[in-house]
């Protein structure tokens, strides 16, 4: 080692530096010699103290060798104690001291003592510092060990008290240790665990990926695996756990252990399953609900090779059960029917490629999904079975027996000839809509009927619905028109008034016959708004008509049953008359026979009485088409009968005598009730002659005048 101090000392020696200046004492000379170039020495004040001690001890040179040796030992010790131990320090000190005057034996003794004192002190210092550093090392290691013990004891406590199961295994899958929570969770003792391998805990429901991930873990390709999986417990029952497997590596990063942390999630899993079941099943019957049905249907439809069939079932008049026997009885009937249908479907379709399933879509609607229809007639057979099952009487608690029927709509997507397939049936929604349309067709035919999907019928139905959908805004879009067909007195041909007729110029379907859309309006409830619009517009048209309208002419407007059921129909009609200024006796409301002759029609009859009391005329329309309860006719506030146009013969030439007699009888009946009788649909000379012969009072039809827009001249 070449310290700066050593270098400086040697440099001074080598360069033959001149003797230290006279007049400077030993202390000063030593300071100069020891300091040269070395920044390692104690600070100046302490160095000065040392130099004075040195000079003091050097006085022994003037005594004897023993005292000199003792002084030398103290100097050596002093140098060590004061850390003046750097290379060259002893050499410089000896040089300064030997330059002193004194007996040679004393000088020798001093230097010898210094060597002995220095080496002894240095040896002591080395031993002391080595002891110190070893003690520090031991203390530090103790601390570390204490921390390790504490952390291990904390870990042990955690391990033992943890609510989650913890297991430690080696990389061969041998189980080394498990905590009490895990022994409780599995029902194995610690010893039983230790005698088993991780592979023992495979479960048939394990996803293949679980054990692939496990292999990745123990081979160090990944450090953690998380999964949920089933385990067999000791008693054969199962427990589902959320499992976290962690790889433990040593200081060099080599895999050494695996630690499994397991949380028992069996209850949570069951709850989830139950919730999932509740979300996908009907609470009342336990059948699949609409959501599950749709998802299964989508899955079935997505398989292009499958013949997917639907049988859409609706109980006929089920509302009657609820209304008359109460909802509890209705629910019980639904539950019993659901069980019966499910059993029947399972049995009937057991031999099919894939068994069919029943779902409840709501209310009294059920649907059977057959994902693999085996033959063309199979679905119709199934539908017949369904109808038959429902037709079997249902025995409710309390000895009540109910007889029901069901209508079924059937549709099948045939897979075989793809190009010929109906594209609408390629989606779940399309298939379900087709089944629904077929069901509507079946219901239209009466109770207990089955209808199979037909493309053309479905298209008609769809057009019908499209119309229904666009009706509500028709008036606002200015697509509706009123035209007026004159009523002519037969005796003199005078125009008595006109019937307002509605026309719909549909942007897509063109002119739509009232017969088609009024029925729709009645189904959808749109008839109320439509009826009010017609009445108001017609009243206004007549008031504003001008010269072409007969001075005491009567405006005839049709009124639907639904309108008469509205509580404020009387106020409505009165309001319109007041607003437009049409006198009540100038308005005639036409109501149909079927509307009024039902026994429950008390509200409409009351409404008509109130309107009649205000002076409004009431006419019974379409007489001769339905059944006529003549007894009831007397109780109605009628002013006239309008005979249905269908009573007019369709063939040219002489009318059938029987037809003529029926007509005459109806006219006589009207007259007997003191009513005016008006014939509708008079289109030919033959019709005119017929109605005249039958003694009708007035007539309406193309023969007397085509319908005209408001303001134009009425009559031929």
């Amino acid at each position, binding site marked *: 080692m070449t310290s700066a101090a050593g270098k400086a000392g040697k440099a001074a020696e080598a360069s033959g530096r001149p003797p230290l200046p006279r007049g400077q004492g030993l202390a000063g000379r030593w300071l100069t010699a020891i300091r040269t170039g070395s920044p390692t020495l104690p600070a*100046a004040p302490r160095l000065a103290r040392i130099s004075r001690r040195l000079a003091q001890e050097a006085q022994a040179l003037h005594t004897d060798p023993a005292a000199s040796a003792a002084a030398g030992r103290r100097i050596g010790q002093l140098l060590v104690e004061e*850390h003046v131990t750097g290379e060259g320090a002893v050499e410089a000190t000896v040089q300064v001291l030997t330059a002193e005057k004194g007996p040679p034996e004393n000088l020798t003794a001093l230097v010898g003592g210094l060597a002995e004192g220095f080496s002894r002190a240095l040896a002591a210092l080395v031993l002391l510092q080595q002891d*110190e550093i070893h003690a520090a090392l031991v203390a530090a290691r103790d601390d570390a060990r204490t921390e390790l013990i504490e952390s291990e004891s904390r870990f042990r406590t955690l391990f033992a008290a943890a609510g989650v199961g913890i297991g430690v295994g080696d990389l061969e899958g041998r189980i080394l240790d498990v905590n009490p929570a895990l022994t409780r969770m599995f029902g194995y003792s610690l010893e039983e665990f230790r005698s088993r391998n991780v592979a023992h805990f495979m479960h048939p429901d394990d996803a293949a990926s679980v054990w692939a991930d496990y292999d990745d873990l123990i081979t160090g390709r990944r450090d953690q695996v998380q999964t949920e999986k089933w385990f067999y417990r000791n008693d054969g029952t199962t427990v589902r756990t959320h499992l976290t497997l962690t790889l433990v590596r040593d200081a060099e990063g080599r895999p050494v252990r695996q630690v499994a942390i397991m949380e028992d999630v069996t209850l949570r899993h069951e709850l989830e399953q139950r919730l999932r079941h509740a979300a996908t099943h009907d609470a009342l019957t336990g059948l699949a609900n609409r959501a599950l049905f749709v998802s299964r249907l989508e899955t079935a439809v997505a398989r292009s090779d499958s013949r997917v069939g639907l049988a859409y079932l609706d109980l006929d008049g089920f509302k009657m059960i609820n209304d008359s026997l109460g909802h509890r009885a209705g629910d019980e009937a639904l539950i019993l029917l659901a069980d019966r249908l499910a059993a029947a479907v399972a049995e009937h379709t057991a031999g099919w490629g894939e068994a069919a399933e029943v779902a409840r879509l709501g209310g009294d609607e059920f649907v059977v999904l057959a994902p693999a229809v085996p033959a063309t007639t199979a679905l119709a057979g199934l539908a017949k079975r369904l109808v038959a099952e429902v037709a079997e009487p249902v025995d409710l608690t309390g000895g009540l027996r109910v007889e029901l029927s069901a209508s079924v709509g059937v549709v099948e997507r045939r897979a075989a000839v793809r190009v010929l397939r109906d594209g609408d049936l390629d989606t779940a929604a399309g298939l379900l809509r087709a089944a629904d349309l077929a069901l509507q067709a079946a219901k239209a035919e009466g109770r207990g009927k089955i209808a199979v999907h037909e493309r053309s019928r479905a298209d008609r139905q769809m057009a019908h619905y499209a119309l229904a959908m666009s009706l509500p805004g028709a008036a606002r879009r200015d697509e509706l028109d009123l035209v007026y067909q004159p009523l002519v007195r037969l005796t003199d041909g005078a125009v008595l008034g006109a019937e307002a007729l509605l026309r719909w110029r549909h942007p897509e379907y063109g002119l739509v016959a009232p017969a088609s859309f009024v029925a729709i309006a009645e189904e959808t409830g749109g008839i109320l708004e439509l009826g009010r619009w017609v009445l108001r517009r017609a009243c206004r048209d007549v008031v504003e008509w001008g010269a072409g309208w007969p001075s005491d002419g009567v405006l005839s407007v049709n009124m639907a049953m639904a309108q008469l059921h509205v509580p404020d129909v009387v106020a409505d009609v009165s309001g319109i008359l007041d607003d437009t200024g049409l006198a009540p006796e100038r308005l005639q409301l036409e109501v149909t026979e079927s509307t009024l002759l039902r026994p429950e029609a008390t509200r409409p009859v009351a409404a008509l009485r109130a309107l009649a009391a205000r002076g409004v005329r009431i006419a019974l329309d379409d007489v001769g088409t339905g059944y006529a309860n003549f007894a009831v006719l007397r109780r109605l506030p009628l002013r006239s009968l309008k005979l249905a146009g269908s009573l007019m013969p369709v063939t040219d030439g002489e009318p059938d005598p029987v037809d003529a007699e029926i007509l005459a009888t109806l006219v006589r009946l009207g007259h007997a009730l003191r009513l005016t009788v008006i014939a509708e649909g008079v289109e030919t000379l033959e019709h005119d002659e017929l109605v005249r012969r039958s003694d009708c009072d007035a007539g309406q039809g193309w023969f007397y005048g085509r319908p005209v827009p408001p303001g134009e001249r009425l009559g031929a």
Partner: protein
Amino acid sequence: MDAAAWTPPGLDISRPSPARVYDYYLGGYHNFAADREMARKALEMWPDLPTIMRANRAFLRRAVSYLAESGVRQFLDIGSGIPTVDNVHSVAQECRPDARVVYVDIDPVAVQHSRAILAGDRQTAVVQADLREPDDVLGKAADTGLLDFRQPVALLVVALLHFVPDSDHPDEVLRAYRDALGSGSHLVISHATHEGRPELTASHEELYRRMGTPMTMRSWRQVSAFFDGYDLVDPGLVYLLQWRPGPEEEATPPESVPAWVGVGRRS
């Protein structure tokens, strides 16, 4: 668990510890064979190392003397190592007998040793902490009850920052300390540099990298940034031997000790 994996740094005497190597350079015997072996290898590559280390120790002494004379009574010495000669508290107490010092080191053996030699001294304390965790260092220092951080404190970061790589964000670390100290506080830094002795830098860095404590030499500008917001007292940020030198320092070329040193003060 494998015992070796749990051994903290410094406890494994088969590996050199910077604190013990430093002690060896200073002429101490608080070191083990691996430390001396490392030191001997270092000396082969850079024979001036002990001189540099001792010069650094001397700078510490001059800086502490200066601070004590300026009225500072509280010292926080981070990276104190194994102090045997001219400890901060003894230098400070020469001038201010009431001076209090908290020593901080990351090496548990150095900490234990310091505790042993300082046992019974009520004006000093030793804590084990990491410079790079200012909150931990300041928290533990405050917990000793010796330092009042409302009063000026001298923070000593001597021959330590060059062991903190840029990836540990020494600028952020230093800012945290500077912000934590109050008005009148001081920051003392000595930092190895490649400037002045560029030809030796590569070998020196290589040496410490092999030792497991890589060194990052920094420029004058980079070291200046560590004082951001503090005023450098005279003579500013200079070569170690140029900072308020004694006769010995003046006699040596300043670049022979390639380190920047400075003392900053928060006004």
